[in-house]
């Protein structure tokens, strides 16, 4: 034991502890801004992450082109059929658009038409995903210099909630995705107006599913119901689409139940996203 606590060994241990302490203190003092490790590494690692993200994406595309040619041909045939269907459906287009606009205005959001959205948004790109098997988070290519703050919601172009900003550096930020076990957001079921809390659950994590719990009246929850943010509990504004109810399960006590929610956003393929930085005045 005497050998273990040699002078150099103590110095190495002390350096590790000092690094951890500085990281903890800078995190606590800055109130969610990136710790010193992120700050000192950002100038080097952000370009590296971006470059690798682009390289891996390109290689995936090449792999897909070479090895998935048959799949692409089959997909092409399906798409041709789909185009024929859409052409038939186009007769109803005007009516659908009008109905859609009316429903969107009723819900208070119009996700496909960004100019009419009541939010100030910044477009962002994912530059890396976490390497952890226990959590789901990713890094985006904008930070405090673009007006991004801790607690901002991150959505897809379709208006699907993807996650919430948890740590902000000067030019990059960390976003915890909706399936992460630390996530919790107030939710409302469209149609029934039942409220509850959608949260990440480790037992559903591998399935990329969420848990809708603390529902006022579970009997009013049905498979296929849309789950939206309620605007209560957390910083996410009301009306963002979280997902749909996939099943109803009994909890571990056997006395209560919760709903399993399939996220609307496909987390395995999201890449270009939007951060809601503010609510438009008026």
């Amino acid at each position: 034991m005497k050998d273990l606590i040699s002078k150099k060994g103590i110095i190495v241990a002390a350096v590790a502890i000092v690094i951890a302490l500085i990281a903890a203190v800078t995190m606590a003092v800055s109130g969610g801004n990136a710790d010193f490790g992120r700050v000192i590494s950002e100038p080097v690692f952000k370009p590296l992450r971006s470059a690798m993200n682009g390289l891996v994406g390109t290689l995936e595309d090449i792999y897909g082109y070479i090895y998935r040619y048959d799949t692409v041909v089959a997909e092409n045939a399906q798409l041709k059929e789909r185009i024929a269907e859409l052409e038939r459906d186009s007769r109803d287009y005007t009516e659908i658009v009008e109905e859609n606009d009316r429903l969107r205005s009723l819900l208070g959001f119009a996700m496909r038409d960004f100019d009419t959205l009541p939010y100030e948004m910044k477009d962002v790109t994912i530059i890396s995903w976490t390497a952890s098997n226990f959590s789901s988070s990713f890094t985006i290519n904008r930070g405090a210099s673009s007006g991004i703050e801790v607690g901002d919601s991150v959505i897809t172009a379709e208006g699907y909630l993807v996650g919430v900003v948890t740590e902000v550096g000067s030019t990059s930020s960390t976003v915890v995705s909706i399936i992460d076990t630390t996530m919790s957001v107030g939710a409302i079921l469209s149609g029934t107006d039942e409220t509850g809390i959608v949260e990440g659950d480790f037992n559903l994590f591998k399935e990329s599913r969420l848990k809708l719990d603390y529902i006022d009246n579970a009997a009013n929850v049905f498979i296929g119901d849309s789950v939206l943010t309620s605007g209560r509990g957390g910083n996410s504004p009301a009306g963002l689409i979280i997902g749909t109810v996939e099943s109803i399960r009994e909890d571990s006590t056997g006395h209560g139940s919760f709903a399993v929610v399939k996220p609307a956003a496909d987390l395995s393929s999201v890449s270009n996203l939007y951060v809601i930085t503010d609510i438009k005045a008026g």
Partner: protein
Amino acid sequence: MTESRKKAAARILLFSALLLFSYILQGLILNRHPIFGAKPLILPFIAVGAAVFFGRVKGGVVGIAAGFLMDLAYNQPTIMFTLTLAFIGLMVGYLVETVLVKGLFAYAVSALAALLICFAVEAVGYLIAGGASASAVLGVGLRQTAASALFAIPVYYIVLGISKLV
């Protein structure tokens, strides 16, 4: 520059390159292409290898660097793995200097222990505060350990090569 300084500089350069390559592989490539449904850990093996072949102090120093990179790859503050891998580097180095015989067996045992420690450090929070079931957490841990084990031997021979070069 003296011969020993040249060797030290070469060692630092080679380990820096190995750490950076492992960070890219673990944190930027295999995080998108899991093996056995799990994202493997590679950086802990470098701390273990450095400790086995170069002793506790260099093992601890490489452990700090590997832990720092692992925390970055995990999108978390540089605390958990910076401390854990520094501790692993120091302990493995101490055990090789006192109990274990330097070589593949010492490395393999230490690498497995390092994987289990990394798993335990991460899993304990989910078990205690996260409400996760033990079976779900253990399932993830098993897959993670199996996927990571594939990289243990290649890293061993790379670090062995570095130890022979410098």
